[in-house]
């Protein structure tokens, strides 16, 4: 005997959906506030007035059109990498190699970008992004294959690959791809990428480039992949329970490798976009730990594209504001890492909490036999 569920009207459905979103945002927001509080304490420690510092932070974020543009510019690589990581995490793979994948992607993308092939802009940009995607994707897929086929711990392999990638880029920027090889004084870098490969600015008066569209498009695509394709379904199944997936006939190895490929590919696009849109030439250490921050972004964003976008903007704001804080209030910008770490800790803890109370609440509404089975 089953009761039919009364059909829910669509305004109710939208409200429920929004409520879920707000609920998901609550923890990260609270975490940020706590993080800012701890940051303030640290600033007191070194004799800086936190209010002044946070004022500078705010100015750096919302002080004007230009500042908002910078926030978005910083958010772009974070969002792209975060999207990739969220897919990998949903598939159960701890891809800590975002950083290396960004570097490798940037290397390939820059190379394409430098070439003067006389291509129209759209084609050149697309080609460069594609090169970045492939390079980052293969770099990650390798680690994914090692993990799926040989059970080699992907945390260690991806981190080692990070260092290898960074040194590889260093080699190329100091060597074969170096601009001005004889100017020993300046920091080695590649020549600037061709005009035809540069991402155009899209907001007058700011430095916001077309990469933002790439990021938003990527978010839509990843959303579609995760929730509306059978590949996304398989990736989630593998992430939740690889044994069940295997018995159901899924090819777990290929699912993992493909998920990692897309994950690394997005990081590669992030690296390429950063060069084509902002820095215009590749040099050592061009990425300030974006790959690691993106892990926090995926987590805080609940591994969901919308969450990743919001978290990316949040952390981008922190980074943009931090530069201003350093310039105006003398607070070393690395305090942002501290705030980020606090956010990570609090969100990680709150996830468990939320699951626990959620589960308890749900359990209390179930049939007695089920609880009995759980406690026998």
């Amino acid at each position, binding site marked *: 005997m089953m009761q039919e569920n009364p059909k829910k009207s669509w305004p109710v459905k939208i409200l429920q959906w929004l409520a879920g979103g707000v609920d998901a945002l609550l923890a990260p927001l609270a975490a940020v506030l706590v993080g800012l509080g701890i940051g303030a304490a640290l600033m007191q420690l070194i004799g800086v007035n936190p209010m002044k510092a946070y004022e500078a932070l705010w100015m750096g974020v919302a002080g004007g059109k230009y500042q908002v543009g910078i926030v978005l510019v910083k958010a772009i690589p974070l969002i792209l990498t975060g999207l990739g990581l969220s897919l990998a995490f949903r598939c159960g793979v701890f891809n800590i190699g975002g950083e290396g994948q960004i570097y490798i992607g940037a290397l390939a993308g820059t190379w394409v970008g430098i070439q003067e092939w006389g291509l129209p802009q759209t084609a050149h940009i697309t080609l460069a992004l594609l090169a970045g995607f492939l390079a980052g994707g293969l770099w990650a897929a390798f680690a994914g294959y090692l993990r799926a086929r040989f059970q080699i711990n992907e945390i260690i392999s991806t981190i080692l690959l990070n260092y290898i990638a960074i040194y590889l880029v260093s080699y190329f920027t100091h060597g074969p791809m170096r601009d001005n090889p004889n100017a020993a004084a300046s920091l080695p870098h590649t020549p600037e990428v061709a005009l035809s490969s540069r991402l155009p600015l899209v907001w007058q008066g700011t430095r916001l480039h077309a990469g933002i569209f790439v990021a938003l498009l990527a978010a839509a695509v990843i959303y579609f992949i995760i929730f509306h394709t059978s590949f996304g*379904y398989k990736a989630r199944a593998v992430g939740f329970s690889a044994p*069940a997936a*295997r018995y159901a006939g899924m090819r777990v190895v290929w699912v993992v490798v493909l998920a990692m490929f897309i994950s690394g590919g997005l990081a590669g696009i992030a690296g390429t976009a950063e060069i084509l849109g902002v820095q215009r030439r590749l040099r050592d250490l061009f990425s300030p730990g974006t790959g690691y921050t993106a892990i926090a972004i995926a987590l805080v964003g609940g591994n969901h594209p919308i969450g990743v976008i919001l978290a990316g903007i949040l952390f981008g704001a922190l980074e943009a504001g931090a530069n201003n804080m350093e310039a105006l209030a003398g607070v070393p910008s690395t305090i942002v890492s501290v705030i980020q770490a606090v956010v990570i800790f609090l969100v990680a803890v709150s996830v468990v909490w939320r699951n626990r109370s959620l589960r308890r609440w749900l359990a209390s509404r*179930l049939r007695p036999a089920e609880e*009995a089975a759980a406690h026998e």
Partner: protein
Amino acid sequence: MGGERSVPLLELKHITKVFGDLKANDQIDLDVQRGEIHALLGENGAGKTTLMNILYGLYHPDGGEIFLRGELTKIHSPRDAIRQHIGMIHQHFMLVPTFSVVENVVLGLPVEREPLLDLRTAARRLSELSAQYGLQIDPNALVGSLPVGVQQRVEILKALYRGADLLVLDEPTAVLSPLEVESFFQVLRQLVQQGLSIIFISHKLDEVLHISDRITVLRRGKKVGTLPRSEATNRKLAEMMVGREVFLDLQRPPLQAGDVVLDVQQLSSKSENGIQSLKVIQFTVQAGEVLGIAGVDGNGQQQLAEALAGLHHTVGGSICVQGVDLTNRPPEDFIRRGVCYVLADRQTTGLVLDFNVDENLILKRCDRQPFARRGVLNLGGIREYGQKVIHEYDIRVEDGRTPVRQLSGGNQQKVILAREIEDGPKLLILMHPTRGLDIGATEYVRQRVLEQRARGVAVLLVSTELDEILALSDRVAVMFRGEIMGIVPGNADQLERISHMMLGESLETMTGINP
């Protein structure tokens, strides 16, 4: 036999334990005399383990009192229980597989020259104990390498080493073959002779009737009654357990077998440490027939099931399904040929617990029509299908979008069954399909099996419950150490042969006939 009629060793008075809305134990009274074997009988979910967990200090009662040796006492933790000379042997052993027997016995106990471990003295004391109670073990053996029956002895010795004189055993025969059960019972009688008292939790009527002095039946958290063995019968106990008249025989319609669906020839494989795990396995299963595979858990059944799923590499022989050789092919090939599985481990391999019911129902068809077209999921179609199946298979759940984790064991099994049956199998493989399910769910599963058999599906049933095997199977094969000891008709009169085969005697030597 029954001890002195003075103060009972243990008295539980009005014990109550509540979890949320559920009264797991409701005003339960129990008394255990010195030197008695007292059985605690009931279905899954009746409250037996909860009650004993309270006795062992794992839970605190919400109401009621415990009297041990005549004195009111509180038991705050297992350590407390041990100090009061209560020992418990859980259904899932608390033994660290990578430790030796001595290390396991000594774990957590204070030693003389703390913190130095003196394993030699401990081993000596352990050997003395083992001789005293007739429980042979090798103190330095690695527990993980010991057969399950021996591991159980280690658990008992652990309790004795700590001075227990009241032993609580939770479903101890679940892992033993019938003959091992008999020697286990002898051990119990010996322990009782040495002055121990025993509480024996079980859901197996026959065993309980065989060994206990008195039997207490629990149902849905309440005590139904306590009977001395002389007054108890199978039927009476079953009625007390379930609360209604229970027909213990399932009617199996006559066999109408068709073509051979599964043909396993000389199948062999190696296990991880190089020892052969499957040895020259040979059998067939015809359409419309049920072949039962009996045997104590751990004798190669898992490997056989995995080989038939494409997940266990074989080095010799062949597996043919409907004439097609599928040896060592990947799982998807087996699935495509109409092989479906209902596995032992619902929660790890059968279901994705964090998916909802709808999603689990399409686990094997997530990239096929009508659930997906060209890689894109048809979410509406999936939902509709889910609703249809939930209705047809009477899965008790509010909505197809409920995470499967929240379903009861029986309903989870229904989801798995529904998924496999809806696939239209030619060969259905079931492993321990009713493990952990209450009587209602068990009946449901067995009926479905017979239904599929009537529809002409070839069924391979692996189970440790002999009554289940005999009720459902047309023929019974017994596995021991990776070999098939023999195949006999599925009638109750074959029980003794089957028991012997479960312990390693081959049918040939018993009957002189080549199977």
